[in-house]
């Protein structure tokens, strides 16, 4: 496939690996932010191509993984209501809440549907005026324009039976929180190419400056990741800390202005709870006051539901890069993709599931 296969070429990957070996003189730890990148790194065995001492740390870039248990419990409470048709991306169905997951609630008779796009949920609401259609809106900046458009359309179409359970998260505040942790081992970042496709690169300059870390906006194919790594390591070796863009074919420095306008029309920045990281100020999106009528938390009054994370799961340390999935006593035994204890094992982009799938031997 065009724009895919050419970036998986083995000879070029080997050439990049050689160039990285030639470049590196000291150990470095580089964090990839996005779960899509984690998936590619583990799937293509990119870590094995790197010289000893260059370590990839898997960051918090999987929105499914960082969605807190209490949001799941709220989703379960809403989905179980008889008048509700609950729509979600497929990944969220098996993320465990305190007692159940959405899949269980569905098997108990709730009307839970997997949709490809939030617009499918709007269409359902239009076609079934007698049902309350609720969309579970999780995601990073990449997904926010789509979810914002869904609310905007529902409003345009005058649909009073559509609402959203919003748990949107933002990447730069999470980077800031990770770097502010005195335990951090991260020397440089591969920033998420599709987040920056929407938001542009301007938010990263102040972070690179303040924490003296190179940040390279990077794509998702093996050669993208290897080039992004080369760019970060080159900066580290030369003592620079700048924002650079590897993923030029998709990311402009200003991002996607029409998408940003729609996001700021519908959403406002709010504090958000991150699974494993705790509450981070100004790190999420919620519905703006003008669109409060579409807020499922208010509509179904589930704001009081709160919950704590499973004590066995060390996903917090995994998300911070302090531990690897195999450091978890439950990994592959009490916790597997078929019976996940924590979210990083559920999502195909989660670090634990990626290790389980590609690195069992």
């Amino acid at each position, binding site marked *: 496939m065009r724009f895919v296969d050419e970036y998986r070429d083995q000879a070029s990957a080997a*050439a990049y690996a050689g160039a990285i070996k030639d470049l590196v003189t000291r150990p470095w730890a580089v964090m990839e932010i996005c779960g899509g990148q984690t998936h590619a790194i583990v799937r293509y065995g990119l870590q094995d191509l790197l010289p000893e001492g260059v370590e990839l740390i898997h960051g918090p870039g999987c929105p499914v993984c960082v969605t807190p248990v209490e949001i799941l419990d709220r989703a379960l409470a809403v989905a179980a209501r008889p008048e509700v048709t609950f729509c979600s991306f497929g990944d969220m169905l098996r993320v465990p809440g305190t007692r159940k997951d959405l899949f269980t609630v569905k098997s108990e008779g709730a009307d839970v549907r997997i949709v*490809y796009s939030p617009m499918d949920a709007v269409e359902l609401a239009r076609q079934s005026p007698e049902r309350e259609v609720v969309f579970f809106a999780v995601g990073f900046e990449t997904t926010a324009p789509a979810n914002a458009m869904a609310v905007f359309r529902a409003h345009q179409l005058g649909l009073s039976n559509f609402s959203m359970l919003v748990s949107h998260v933002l990447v730069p505040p999470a980077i800031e929180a990770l770097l502010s942790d005195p335990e951090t081992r991260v020397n440089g970042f591969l920033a998420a190419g599709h987040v920056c*496709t929407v938001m542009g690169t301007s938010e990263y300059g102040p972070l690179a400056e303040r924490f003296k870390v190179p940040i390279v906006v990077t794509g998702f194919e093996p050669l993208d990741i290897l080039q992004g790594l*080369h760019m970060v390591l080159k900066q580290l070796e030369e003592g620079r800390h700048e924002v650079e863009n590897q993923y030029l*074919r998709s990311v402009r420095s200003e991002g996607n202005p029409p998408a940003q306008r729609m996001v700021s029309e519908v959403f406002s920045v709010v504090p958000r709870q991150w699974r494993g990281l705790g509450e981070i100020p100004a790190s999420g999106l919620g519905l703006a006051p003008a669109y409060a009528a579409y807020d499922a938390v208010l509509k179904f009054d589930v704001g009081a539901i709160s919950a704590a994370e499973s004590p066995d799961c060390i996903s917090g340390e995994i998300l911070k890069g302090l531990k690897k999935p195999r450091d978890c006593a439950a990994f592959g035994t009490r916790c597997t993709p078929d019976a996940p204890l924590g979210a990083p094992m559920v999502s195909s982009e989660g670090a634990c599931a990626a290790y389980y799938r590609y690195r069992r031997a």
Partner: protein
Amino acid sequence: MCLSIPGKIVSVADGAQDDLRMGRVAFGGITKEICLAYVPEAEVGDYVIVHVGFAISKLNQEDARQVFTYLAELGDVGELGALDPAQEV
């Protein structure tokens, strides 16, 4: 869910579905109805990155090769001639 993949616009229906710019995008063999409201500049034949039913960027053909030019500039040119993405469909 975070997956965003490149596809080629095969048709554009401006103003279909009440003013929302929609179009059909081909991903290998599969074609899907995609919202093009966020890529007003993209036309039939352009490649776009698609995420949950929305095109979020038009891929820039000139920048598509920089992964290879950067590598070539590192001095290790290898078999790069065979990898010209312009020859791929």
